[in-house]
């Protein structure tokens, strides 16, 4: 092992049926270091963490821990904790209706008899030494989420943890709470704890971390000192595009000219939802294809969900043809001619046990009304038409949608919205997890629909895809709109530098 290292993972492999989730990944953590683990969705961050904490067993490689002369085998999270590896997740995994002290000591008792007085005193002492604003006897649910997270950390610290893993700890915290958490992280660093910090927030990485390890598609891209890796470089490494190549590729997008003096078809002003995005402005013209881009978790989906009324709207207005309309829930948006293909197909899209036919006609049926059901013949005609149009591979229209492949499920949901003939169609990651042929089909379809006058917002994690379809891109970072690119600015390089943002000048 390297000097000063407390954890070394070497050539870790993990195979899931049909997928190589991790291939020969190395990871080294030193004492007194905050180490960011970065990568896009599916890069292998969570898998690596789960191998380290014993949730998954590894299929290859070794894990070395300081204090053990042989490679360690970690079979369960409990074993990992005994070896000094603790994890604090984004969702609090403590018991909200127990006291703070109970949460810190639950499951660690040595016997039946518990001296609560002593335990409360001990807990208070630790909380005080870490400067956590909570009392031992306080019920956990009465603390803010940030404090609850800190209590989870305090529990880990008291269990003598050497390696602390923080998995997206800041997603549900406000800025002041984040600052407090960072102070605690720095305190622990002083004490020699090694911290692995998993986050999507670039600003936070540069604020608190010492080193960055980047993963992509289950492989190690590299380990970098924070000062050696400017933001733009980091983004390009996460997305897997070399900057030099990027600046050359200009978008193949079509130029789009809005008709002069007409208001946008749809316009959002100061729109804000309960999903934690900053208020944003947005508009789309008739026949335009635009997109939201940004890293995962930057708020792309949350913006379009706010427009569609899928999340609770807290403020701002949406206008159609210049007139304010009220969108409180999806049906309001649908009545105004908006369709929305959601990002998470399984959760928000398919109705698993219903047939392909029922899944296709669902939205149109809802628009038509409760008392006017489609006859079986009508429904079958619509279904057959779109199964043919989109080339959906299904045994029959009666087959339950859940037995179709992911790509074909996606086409069914697409059919559901096309059938409603929307004026404005929002496609949130329509090509995720589907084969290349289908991807191209969908891109072509988007351009065709736009040329027929439909307005489309297209969101994809793959920038190439968006460059091919969008004539304007709204760039997001850390849940806020940070820029808008059109025409000559639509290049990979420009998009990436906008996503990364400048090194903060005002700090």
């Amino acid at each position, binding site marked *: 092992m390297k000097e000063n290292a407390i954890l070394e993972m070497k050539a870790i492999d993990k195979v899931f049926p049909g997928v190589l989730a991790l291939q020969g990944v190395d990871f080294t953590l030193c004492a007194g270091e905050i180490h960011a683990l970065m990568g896009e969705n599916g890069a292998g961050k969570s898998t690596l963490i789960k191998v380290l904490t014993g949730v998954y067993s590894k299929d290859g490689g070794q894990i070395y821990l300081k204090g053990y002369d042989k490679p360690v085998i970690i079979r369960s999270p409990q074993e990992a904790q005994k070896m000094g590896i603790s994890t604090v997740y984004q969702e609090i995994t403590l018991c909200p209706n127990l006291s703070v002290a109970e949460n810190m000591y639950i499951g660690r008792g040595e016997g039946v008899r518990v001296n609560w007085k002593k335990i409360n005193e001990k807990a208070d002492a630790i909380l005080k030494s870490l400067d956590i604003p909570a009392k031992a006897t306080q019920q956990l649910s009465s603390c803010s989420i940030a404090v609850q997270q800190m209590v989870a950390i305090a529990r880990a610290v008291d269990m003598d943890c050497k390696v602390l893993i923080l998995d997206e700890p800041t997603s549900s915290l406000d800025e002041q709470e984040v600052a407090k958490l960072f102070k605690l992280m720095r305190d622990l660093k002083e004490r020699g704890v090694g911290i692995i910090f998993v986050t999507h927030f670039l600003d936070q990485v540069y604020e608190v971390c010492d080193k960055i390890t980047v993963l992509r598609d289950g492989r190690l891209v590299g380990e970098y000192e924070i000062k050696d890796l400017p933001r733009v470089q980091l983004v390009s490494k996460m997305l897997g595009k070399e900057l030099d190549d990027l600046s050359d590729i200009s978008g193949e997008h079509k130029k789009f000219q809005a008709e002069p003096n007409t208001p946008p078809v749809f316009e959002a002003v100061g729109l804000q939802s309960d999903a934690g995005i900053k208020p944003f402005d947005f508009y789309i013209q008739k026949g335009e294809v635009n997109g939201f881009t940004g890293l995962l978790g930057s708020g792309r989906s949350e913006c379009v969900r706010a427009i569609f009324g899928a999340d609770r709207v807290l403020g701002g207005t949406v206008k159609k043809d210049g007139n304010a309309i009220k969108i409180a829930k999806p049906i309001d948006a649908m009545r105004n001619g908006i369709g929305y293909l*959601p990002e998470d197909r399984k959760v928000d899209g398919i109705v698993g*046990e*219903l047939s392909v036919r029922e899944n296709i006609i669902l939205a149109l049926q809802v628009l038509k009304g*409760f008392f006017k*059901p489609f006859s079986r013949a009508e429904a079958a005609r619509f279904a057959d038409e779109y199964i043919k149009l989109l080339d959906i591979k299904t045994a029959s229209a009666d087959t339950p949608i859940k037995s179709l492949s992911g790509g074909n499920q996606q086409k069914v949901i697409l059919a559901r919205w096309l059938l409603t003939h929307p004026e404005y169609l929002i496609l949130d990651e329509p090509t995720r997890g589907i084969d290349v042929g289908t991807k191209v089909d969908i891109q072509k379809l988007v351009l065709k629909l736009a040329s027929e006058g439909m307005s489309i917002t297209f969101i994809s994690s793959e920038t190439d895809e968006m460059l091919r379809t969008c004539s304007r891109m709204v760039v997001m970072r850390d849940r806020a709109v940070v820029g808008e690119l059109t025409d000559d600015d639509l290049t990979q390089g420009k998009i990436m530098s906008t996503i990364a943002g400048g090194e903060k000048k005002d700090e």
Partner: protein
Amino acid sequence: MKIWNKIKSWPLLLPVVALILVMAVNIIHDAAVGDNPLSFFMISLRDTTTNGTILFGRIIDIINRGSEVAILAIGMTLVVSASAGTDISVGSVMSLCASFMCMNLAGYGVSSTTTLAKPLIVGLLAAVLMGALCGAFNGTLVSHLSIQPMVATLILYSAARAIGLLLCNDLIVYVRNPSFAFIGAFTGPIPTPILITVVCIILISVVLKKTALGMYIQSVGINAKASRIAGLNSRRLRFLAYLLCGVFASLAGIVASSRITSADSNNIGLYLEMDAILSVALGGNSLGGGKFNLAGSIIGAYTIQAITTTLYALGVSSIQAPVYKAIIVIIIVVIEAPPFKAFIRKHSAARATKGVKA
């Protein structure tokens, strides 16, 4: 082989097989005691002093006695599908509706009457209204306050009978009026409850045919989030399911009350919620919600009644009957349990590969 596969995937397989089994037990028993083996299926006309010429036979008896559970099973099916929970208050709600109806028909505080204080229709509407009210109460708790269905309906399960007693001034109210008794007796030769059940089934069939209710409820039950994105209001639909369940409970209550021409708060609909839930499960519906099969539930309801009647015919006392019912429930639940299904699949797959090798 193809036909076999088709039968295996037939949604009504379980309830129909159960019903056939019950019939088989009857045939064997009748043959064993030296009766005509087909006496279970015999229907005859008999003259009675009270009701004139009526249909008579064990089958008629089962369909007649099974009316309440069949009516309850309709509402229960919708509730299970929409909310992945059960309404355990239906038995008590039946009783409350009966009490409210009899209170209206007899007048408050009157314990026995032969003349109606109000027109019959007012009493019937009062019962239905009370059922709708109870359903709305349950529906609000479940859909708008997100209380677990079992807990939400536990409130009326325990309170409704007491409220009924309160309405009837702690009395068993008897309404011995022929126009009221007719509901639980005979229309021509046919028992009226059978006709009422048929009307209920036609009613719900029309609703399912003429509205998108069926698809909406299943969609919400399978994936509420996706349904919302597609424009459905899952709260309102869940509420509607409970509301309808309450209305059907009131109809069952009217029938049960008329049979005994009284509102016996402590006994009307007793334990029937369990039979209704069992009908739904026996009908091949998943109690986890989602897709429903109304025909299955109704066949399930009559199967349960057939089991009860058969047990009596076999000489099992009414006190012992629940033990045998419990055994049948255990068998059904095990057959439907995912691990058991997986076990069967594994076994038949293994046999299939063996066959290929040979």
